[in-house]
């Protein structure tokens, strides 16, 4: 049996005494587009960040293509993998952040090139070619030599997505990528993500854009108080919620 693209088993995560993830299970196949919805504090972003080892987690496991992320067993002792190994595993996933996090001292194209040169070890010309291809895909080839400070929020986020996806990750993680944007800039970013989804990119999105989650995903996960409250295809989730919590959440969110 082939491995699942992503397999999360009984994921637990606490900050001090506060348990934010209380045993999350989740699997994804190649090509899946999964949206995670839920109120703030439900643990959706934390779960995403655990997949990329931006957060440590206390127990449970995360694997990508059957490869366990972040931790290994030494005898009976669970320990964090070596930093170099974690760095390599992080490149299996790409991540786009709410705050874009472009490197402000580099032009758009250099932002995309950095990982290609330093992690993928491409030479400069190859890296530039790949970067320009992806900047073109997000509609910003003409802005390749602009610096982040010279770009609008929407443009910055599109560059950030190009930067992540140029690394050819197995799975793209989107962490509320439109939350920091002015309303009129949201669409250009969502459009880019939609195109990527149509091209078969596997992705996991934390989003507050219910309409978008409905349209783009083949599965929706509703997180509630550190657990998966309900999951299913978008049609059922949005039109026939089984749990009261989800029905309530949908009522208060913008999905009409």
């Amino acid at each position, binding site marked *: 049996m082939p491995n699942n693209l992503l397999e999360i088993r009984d994921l637990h995560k606490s900050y001090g005494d506060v348990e934010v993830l209380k045993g999350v299970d989740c699997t994804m196949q190649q090509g899946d587009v999964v949206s995670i919805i839920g109120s703030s504090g439900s643990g959706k972003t934390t779960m995403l960040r655990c997949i*990329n*080892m*931006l957060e440590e987690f206390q127990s449970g496991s995360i694997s990508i293509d059957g490869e366990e992320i972040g931790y290994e067993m030494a005898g009976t002792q669970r320990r964090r993998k070596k*930093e*170099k190994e974690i*760095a*390599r595993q*992080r*490149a299996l*996933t*790409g*991540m786009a*952040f709410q*705050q874009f*996090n*472009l*490197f*402000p*001292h580099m032009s758009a194209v250099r932002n995309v090139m*950095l*990982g290609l040169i*330093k*992690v993928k070890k491409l030479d400069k010309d190859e890296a530039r070619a790949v970067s320009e291809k992806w900047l073109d895909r997000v509609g910003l080839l003409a802005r390749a030599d*602009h*610096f982040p*400070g*010279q770009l609008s929020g929407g443009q910055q986020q599109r560059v*950030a997505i190009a*930067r*992540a996806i140029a*690394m050819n990750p197995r799975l793209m993680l989107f962490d509320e990528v439109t939350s920091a944007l002015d309303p009129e800039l949201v669409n250009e970013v969502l459009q880019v993500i939609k195109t990527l989804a149509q091209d078969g990119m596997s992705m996991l999105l934390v989003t507050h854009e219910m309409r978008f989650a409905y349209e783009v995903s083949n599965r929706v996960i509703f997180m509630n108080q550190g657990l998966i409250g309900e999951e299913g295809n978008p049609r059922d989730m949005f039109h026939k919620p089984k749990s009261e919590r989800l029905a309530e959440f949908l009522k208060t969110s913008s999905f009409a």
Partner: protein
Amino acid sequence: MDISHFLDVLWLARSPILKGVGVTLSISLLAICCGTLLGVIVGLALTYAKAPLRWIVRGYTDFIRGTPVLVLVLASYYVLGTIGLDLGPFQAGILALAVFCSSHVGEIVRGALQSIPKGQTEAAKAIGLTFPQTFAYVLGPQALRQVLPAWVNTAAEMVKASTLLSIIGVAELLLRTQELISRSFMSLEFYFFAGFLYFTINYAIERFGRYVERKIAVPS
């Protein structure tokens, strides 16, 4: 005040003055270079080192920054000798200034590194960069731009602090000037002239800093 007479005396005194300027420049340059090198290490330790080491370095910077430079200079010359580290006035002076410089540069570097948003490190991690790579290509270059104005300021402070070495008998510009005054009694003229020379050195440092700042400025 007779200008042409002063110019005559000044011309005759050109050699000690030039030597004094040379010593002042060497002291400053050495202190700034060593102090900056050490200061970057101090700044890195203050930002990234684990608890016991970080506390030690924090203690070092707080102690040095809370001590007058003159005390450091005197201690380095007179006290180190008593524990067997016999330095000449020139070396002792540079050691004191470099140590002083390092505590300031350390704080500047720490401030710059800590002001970089956490998202920068996270984005670098997310594309698979290791920490040394993250520092070299993402954090370092951003910190450098922030550090520069304060660093130029510290460099100018070091030039001024170099005058304190006259007290332990280093023949830098101020001591040379005082020697000339004691022979010619032209205190106003020579102090003015020395002041002018210090100003020129610091002005050059400041212009250079501005130039580099412009060169590496990020377009926005």
